[in-house]
């Protein structure tokens, strides 16, 4: 338990302390190739072909990369103010009138504050609203108010809602038109700002509802989504130097889940199945995969890399990724201990 009345030890040198870098912490490593604002750029491109696309936000255009769209199409951009329930209600209204609103805020506010509006005004009528939310899972060191550690758990329970958790800039670019083509509401976990490019090294194309194997291997099967796919790809490379052979199955669509591919991969004997997700251990990809395996009679050795069922600490993002097991180093250590 945290004790706020215990004074900190101030003797350590200041240099050892890490900066929090607040909201705008990047998930990119120094050597990663990145692209700036892939969501905003992709939406601008899409809007040129689809006049029914509009953009909306709840005072977070700048922090969800929607400012790029707002600049390119000022008359198709709606600033709804910091009012997330209104944002979702109004998005439903625009969708009713035939438009395709892309509505942005942070994942915490869409999932926690606006849930009922998304459920009843949007999802129950299967309306064409596309919800793109920054700061999914643990992607800020700012503390629980901005760490959407349970957004998948919350949204998985919502009928009609498609949920996607892209891994990199390339996938976000491909997901944006796919979201518009899909009839019905979609929730996307958005990586914003400088977003790494990773999937160009694999023969990969994003399709809603499809899981794809990026790497094959015989000792471990990683099943992952979002930024954890980036992390397990790096971990798999490094494990190879320790003669541990790891496969990576990337599952960007959390709902509906690609059960057939998951069953086919996890059903291959002899591999430790490790589901890795940037989300609470409760109610996310790990438990979704576990359910699929149980229902299909697959008794693989099964482990989860996920955030604890807790409100997480504030601090520097790299510190927290180490502390909660999402960094490449932490993944390596954890998996080796399981083998």
């Amino acid at each position: 338990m945290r004790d706020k009345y215990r004074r900190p030890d101030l003797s350590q040198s200041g240099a050892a302390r890490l900066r929090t870098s607040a909201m705008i912490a990047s998930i990119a490593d120094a050597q990663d190739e990145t692209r700036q604002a892939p969501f905003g750029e992709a939406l601008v491109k899409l809007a040129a072909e689809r006049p029914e696309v509009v953009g909306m936000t709840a005072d977070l255009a700048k922090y969800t990369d929607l400012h790029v769209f707002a600049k390119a199409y000022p008359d198709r951009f709606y600033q709804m103010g910091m009012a997330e329930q209104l944002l979702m209600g109004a998005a439903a209204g625009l969708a009713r009138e035939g438009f395709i609103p892309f509505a942005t805020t942070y994942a915490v506010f869409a999932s926690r504050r606006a849930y009922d509006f998304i459920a009843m005004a949007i999802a129950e009528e299967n309306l064409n609203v596309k919800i793109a939310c920054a700061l999914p899972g643990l992607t800020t060191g700012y503390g629980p108010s901005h760490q959407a550690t349970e957004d998948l758990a919350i949204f998985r329970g919502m009928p009609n809602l498609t949920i996607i958790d892209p891994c990199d800039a390339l996938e976000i670019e491909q997901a944006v038109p796919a979201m518009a083509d899909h009839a019905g509401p979609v929730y996307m976990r958005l990586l914003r700002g400088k977003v790494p490019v990773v999937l160009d090294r694999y023969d990969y194309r994003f399709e809603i509802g499809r899981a794809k194997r990026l790497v094959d291997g015989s000792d471990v099967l990683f099943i992952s989504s979002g930024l954890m796919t980036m992390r397990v790809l790096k971990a798999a490379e490094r494990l190879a130097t320790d003669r541990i052979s790891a496969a990576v199955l990337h599952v960007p669509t959390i709902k509906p889940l690609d059960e057939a591919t998951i069953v086919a991969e996890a059903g291959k004997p002899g591999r430790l199945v490790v589901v890795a997700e940037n989300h609470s251990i409760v109610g996310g990809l790990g438990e979704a995969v576990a359910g699929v395996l149980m229902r299909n009679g697959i008794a693989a050795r099964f482990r989860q890399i996920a955030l604890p069922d807790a409100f997480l600490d504030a601090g520097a993002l790299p510190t927290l990724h180490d502390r909660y097991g999402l960094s490449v180093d932490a993944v390596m250590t954890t998996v080796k201990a399981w083998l």
Partner: protein
Amino acid sequence: MTVQDPPAPVSRAISNASLAQRAYRIRRHALLMGEVQGQGYIAQALGIADVLAVSYFHAMTYRADDPEWEGRDRFLLSIGHYAIALYAALIEAAIIPEEEIPTYGADDSRLPMSGMAAYTPGMEITGGSLGQGLPIAIGVALGLRRKSLGSFVYTLFSDGELDEGATWEAAMSASTHRLANLIGIVDVNNMQADGPSTGIMAFEPLGPKFEAFGWFVQRVDGNDLDALTTAFDRARHHDWPGPRIVICDTKMGRGVPFLEARERNHFLNVGPEEWSQALEVLDAARPL
């Protein structure tokens, strides 16, 4: 409710000259914390320093050595990102030791970037998910009344939070429950994440809105210590049987002209050499 002359306020020993020193020191602590991270909500802290000086060194009753003393006035910081400002006030009030300034925002610090009740003595609530402060204040005010405590609950919220529906649910509830022990403080700095607040949501005219909702309303220059002390005295002593609000028009970056001049100042990046310049400017204008 139109503003009338208040009953004579209980006179306090502290003069506005020393309040100016408090405000100056709050700004100074905030700049020193801002420098630790090199960036942050520093313009808000400079803008709200006078309001905090009047709250903590004129209006409120509390015990620095016992931040949870039952008889204290409660101060709820709805705007978690203003934590840097409240830490500065809590340091000045000797609730947090000044030596902890270098830990601001660092791993395992008691001073995280967003205000949270579990981390910091004197931080009453966890803010940050904006729009929750006024609803919580309703419950605290009801609770204080149930316990027959004469304490006030002050809650500081922002013009951005006027966008949230929950703020207005609470605004109606406060007068429904005739919460005369509730003092709302709104920082109208005309800024929020995407730009100037008045361009984002048409919340003006704000005073008449709260009046229509049954509040005792005062609107003041939030960087004028005389106006603030008068307004806080009235808020506390007026016989209006419902909630009170002090709408404070503030200037972001106040006290450091080159920061005041920055346009997009919701989240400021300040260059390494600019921090000492900011301190110099502030110190040069130091009140005697």
